[in-house]
């Protein structure tokens, strides 16, 4: 039991990840608003759909259009249809200070139950007089906003509830990477010390890592079908992930194609090191060089600093640790199984000769 505490820890962490990751609600958000364009000086009536809001129960509901920090207007009238649909009418001024000749505004909906929700670039205004600024602005709205501090995951357009995929799909890739680091260290140790136990350990960890990688691709494909409409796209990150996994599948092929244990161990260790060295540019460097459809783009192939909220981090990091521990348990079982089956084989051979 003393030696197995980490297995139980991994299981407990993963239960926490599943329960908290699925139950914590999303922050309120704005799904869509239309129309998107208007000419300056005219009215605009926006039809708005929100997410996770109680619009019909709110007593202090405010709707703003923000062109910049000091250019904010409030809706002149609004009509609430139900908990997540409303229409709002704005008077758009002609003089809006803007760098471009078409100004854009962020739509902000705030109420005391849900807190603020925003939609950037909700409205584009053409025919503006961008040199002057009108006098209809209402000043700083930040003190008026009911900022909530309950624990909720961020709302992101298009992604919606699948932000929870961070804890499973993304975490499995990270756990795979952790397992591969362990396996490549053991491969290097085998090349130095030529002790078969390092070969067993690196084989076990690489095998589990490949399983995790396949699971990562499968979960990614399902998510892609329902987010982008296709199981696979011509995306650099996806293709690099496929190439990396093919390289590692070749590791399995290599091991199974050689009968002599010593040769197998040596070639497998060398190939493992090569595959890991190839993984660094393929999976980590090249996807960062270009923009990509996959979340976390613009120079970062995973959900990195800008994509992750502190609330997401509280479940994401434990998910990586939990999945790495689970993968280690699986590797540990596989390694012990290999040992006892080779031990039994030896005893059988010995007993035949004695």
């Amino acid at each position, binding site marked *: 039991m003393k030696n*197995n505490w980490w*297995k139980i820890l991994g*299981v407990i962490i*993963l*239960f926490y990840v*599943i*329960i908290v990751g*699925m*139950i914590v*609600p*999303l922050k309120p958000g704005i799904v869509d608003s239309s129309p998107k364009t208007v000419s300056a000086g005219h009215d605009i009536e926006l039809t708005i759909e929100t997410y*996770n809001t*109680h619009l019909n129960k709110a007593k202090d509901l405010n709707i703003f259009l923000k062109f910049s920090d000091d250019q904010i207007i409030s809706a002149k009238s609004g009509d609430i249809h139900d*908990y997540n649909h409303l229409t709002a009418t704005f008077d758009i001024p002609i003089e809006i200070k803007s760098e471009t000749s078409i100004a854009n505004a962020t739509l902000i909906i705030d109420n005391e139950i849900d807190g603020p929700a925003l939609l950037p670039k909700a409205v584009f205004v053409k025919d503006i007089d961008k040199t002057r600024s009108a006098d209809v602005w209402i000043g700083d709205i930040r003190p008026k906003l009911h900022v909530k501090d309950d624990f909720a995951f961020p709302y992101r357009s298009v992604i919606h509830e699948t932000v929870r995929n961070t804890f499973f799909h993304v975490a499995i890739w990270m756990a795979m990477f952790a397992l591969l680091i362990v396996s490549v260290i053991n491969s290097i140790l085998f090349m130095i010390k030529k002790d078969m136990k390092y070969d067993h350990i690196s084989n076990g960890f690489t095998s589990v890592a490949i399983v995790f990688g396949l699971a990562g691709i499968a979960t990614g494909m399902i998510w892609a079908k329902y987010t982008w409409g296709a199981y696979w796209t011509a995306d650099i990150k996806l293709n690099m992930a496929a190439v990396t996994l093919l390289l590692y599948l070749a590791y399995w092929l290599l091991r199974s194609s050689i009968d002599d244990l010593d040769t197998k161990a040596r070639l497998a260790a060398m190939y493992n090191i090569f595959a890991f060295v190839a993984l660094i540019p393929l999976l980590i460097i090249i996807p960062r060089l270009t923009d990509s459809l996959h979340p976390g783009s613009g120079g970062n192939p995973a959900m990195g600093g800008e994509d992750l909220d502190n609330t997401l981090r509280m479940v994401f990091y434990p998910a990586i640790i939990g999945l790495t521990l689970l993968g280690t*348990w*699986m590797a540990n*079982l596989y390694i*012990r*199984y290999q*040992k*006892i089956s080779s*031990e*039994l084989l030896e*005893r059988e051979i010995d007993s035949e000769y004695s």
Partner: protein
Amino acid sequence: MLEKIRPGILLSLLLIPQFIFAESGQDFLRSTGKIYVVVVVICILFLAIVLFLARLDSKIRKIEKILNK
């Protein structure tokens, strides 16, 4: 034996959220009660995987003990 009790356990777990959260149906929001069912289902599936691993672990341990005697 466990297979016979399991549907009963699941059913009674399904009833709990209905009492705690009266707001459901029309006022669909953060918690409809139904997500809890999904969480329970995932937990049961995960528990099944963990129990499989634990059983495999104990079987291998038994054989290791015999071999190391």
